[in-house]
């Protein structure tokens, strides 16, 4: 069972809650409408140490843990999923693998800026023809023996934080050889601005409008040999481990969304009058709100339970998948029901629950679809499912 939050975690939650209320919430609607990536606010989050929470002080980090990072993501998601995913992806998908798998030289070179939020990293795993089946990566990297450089060719799809003005790198997975007849995958750090790394124009998305997402084309993109992350050929294992951590953080984001729905729906059900009484006087409405409270409580228990296991160094793969699956599906249900409670106002873009509704759907898709979570859970249960 997840432990009660300690003093540090409570203090961080109070700080992020205030920051979210004062610096994010008032602008979130405009960022959503104008598809603005608010780089100044991201830098402020950097100054507050949010990007460094789980990393050691040696790299400028805060020496915290995954639980504490989850608290920050949860609080931000209550007001703006785009800001929350910017933090989650930068820490979970870019800085974390460099810290976990990178050589000391790679950590020294890249982490200080990522940890301080002066720079953002992207994680380029998905390809147009390899998503859930990420092992089917087609991007290739070969060594040019004359220059001892990797030459990378391929295409990546839907890569978060890959094209902001402060993006410093993208970690891309690529086939670098074969072992026992199977393609061998490596993760390679590609610095932003490397010739041959083409950042495609932003997508037209249904939500997460203030989050930065691009397709990437790698065309004879050359990086030095020592840019392979950690060991050559370990890419597949690396991204599986990276995604395990990331799932808990995404589930924390979903938890924040559910809590937002609960708070908004409770208020509206009390305030909105129809047939001469608050709509919450109808069981049909009140029961929906009650269900939101149940979803929030269940998601909270699953998220912080999984995070506590991870922080204690215990196995957590199944628990992470369970938390991600439940919290993200519940977030989609919660946003749909909250939108229903808001009636016509719920269909208006400027309504918070409407934005949360549009933004929530991707939670069942990114960092492993709900189906993939069920596969992971099924395998953990010992089923022969493939």
């Amino acid at each position, binding site marked *: 069972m997840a432990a009660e939050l300690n003093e540090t975690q409570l203090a961080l939650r109070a700080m992020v809650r205030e920051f979210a209320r004062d610096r994010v919430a008032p602008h979130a609607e405009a960022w959503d409408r104008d598809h603005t990536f608010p780089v100044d606010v991201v830098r402020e989050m950097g*100054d507050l140490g949010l990007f460094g*929470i789980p990393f050691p002080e040696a790299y400028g980090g805060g020496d915290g843990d995954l639980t504490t990072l989850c608290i920050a993501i949860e609080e931000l998601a209550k007001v703006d999923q785009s800001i929350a995913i910017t933090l989650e992806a930068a820490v979970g998908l870019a800085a974390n693998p460099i810290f976990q798998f990178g050589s000391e030289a790679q950590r020294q070179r890249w982490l200080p800026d990522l940890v301080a939020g002066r720079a953002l990293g992207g994680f380029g795993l998905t390809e147009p023809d390899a998503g859930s089946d990420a092992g089917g990566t087609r991007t290739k990297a070969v060594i040019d023996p004359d220059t001892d450089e990797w030459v990378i060719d391929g295409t990546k799809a839907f890569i978060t934080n890959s094209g902001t003005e402060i993006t410093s790198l993208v970690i891309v997975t690529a086939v670098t050889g074969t072992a026992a007849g199977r393609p061998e995958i490596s993760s390679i750090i590609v610095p932003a601005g490397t010739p041959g790394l083409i950042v495609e124009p932003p997508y037209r998305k249904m939500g997460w409008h203030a989050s930065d997402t691009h397709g990437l084309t790698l065309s004879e993109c050359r990086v030095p040999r020592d840019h392979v992350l950690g060991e050559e050929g370990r890419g597949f294992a690396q991204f599986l481990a990276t995604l395990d951590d990331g799932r808990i953080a995404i589930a924390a984001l979903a938890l924040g969304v559910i809590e937002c729905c609960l708070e908004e729906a409770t208020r509206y059900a009390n305030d909105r009058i129809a047939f001469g009484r608050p709509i919450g006087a109808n069981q049909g409405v009140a029961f929906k709100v009650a269900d939101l409270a149940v979803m929030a409580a269940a998601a909270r228990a699953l998220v912080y339970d999984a995070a506590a296991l991870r922080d204690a160094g215990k196995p957590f793969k199944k628990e992470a998948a369970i938390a991600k699956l439940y919290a993200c599906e519940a977030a989609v249900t919660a946003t749909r029901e909250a939108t229903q409670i808001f009636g016509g106002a719920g269909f208006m873009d400027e309504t918070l629950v409407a934005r949360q509704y549009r933004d929530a759907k991707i939670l069942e898709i990114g960092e492993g679809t709900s189906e993939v979570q069920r596969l992971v859970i099924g395998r953990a249960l010992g089923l022969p499912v493939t």
Partner: protein
Amino acid sequence: MNIVVCVKQIPDPAEPGALDPNTKTLKRDTKLILDESDAYGVEMALQLADAAGGGEVTLVSMAPNNETAGLRTALAMGAAKAILVSDPSLQGSDALTTSKVLAGAIKRVEGADLILTATESSDGYTGTVPEQVAELLGLPSVTFAKSIAVEGSTVKVERQTEAGYDDVECPTPCVVSVTAGVVEPRYPSFKGIMAAKSKPVDELSAADVGVTAGGWAGAGQEIVAVEQAPAREAGEVVEDDGTGAEKIVAFLENLRVI
């Protein structure tokens, strides 16, 4: 430049508060937090120490149950250390006793050039503590500061008035009360929060700061009765017949708001 900031730790205003029917004072058995009014003083002190190129900001607080949560917030913002006076014998202390306790604690801080407080707290808001502290310490005091600058051993204060502000000067050391909202208090960073855990908090008893007759016994005041505030009366509806704006202006002028 060494600065002392008095910071009160109060029940979270976001949680519904309650009065203890026996003592007729606010219940303080929940977790206390930094009074937002004092966040401005802390911010101003940090800025002044920065501008002076160094020096320490020391916090002083009196609170029940050895409460430090509010102090940790201010330490996380950047204060160096804190003195907390917490003593069961102080329960029931009135504003004068509180001031004696704070003055006694401030005396223990060596080389304080400036003592900052808020103009009034968010929960008790008698607005009397700052001047009482100054009097007990025998120091000059300035109230309602909207900005403070220190030049050598002179403190220059813009003192907020109804019409604008007065320029006031006074020699250090002195007590200055800071108006709410005049600076933007920084958020405590995560590193600040982690660092605050190991910053020293000196916990003292009433006797340590020379207060022996505190609490109910020492109070020069008695709370005789507490009553519900009268329910808000219905507002005045101004029909706009073309002169609505003038009527509203007249109404506000009457209240002396504008």
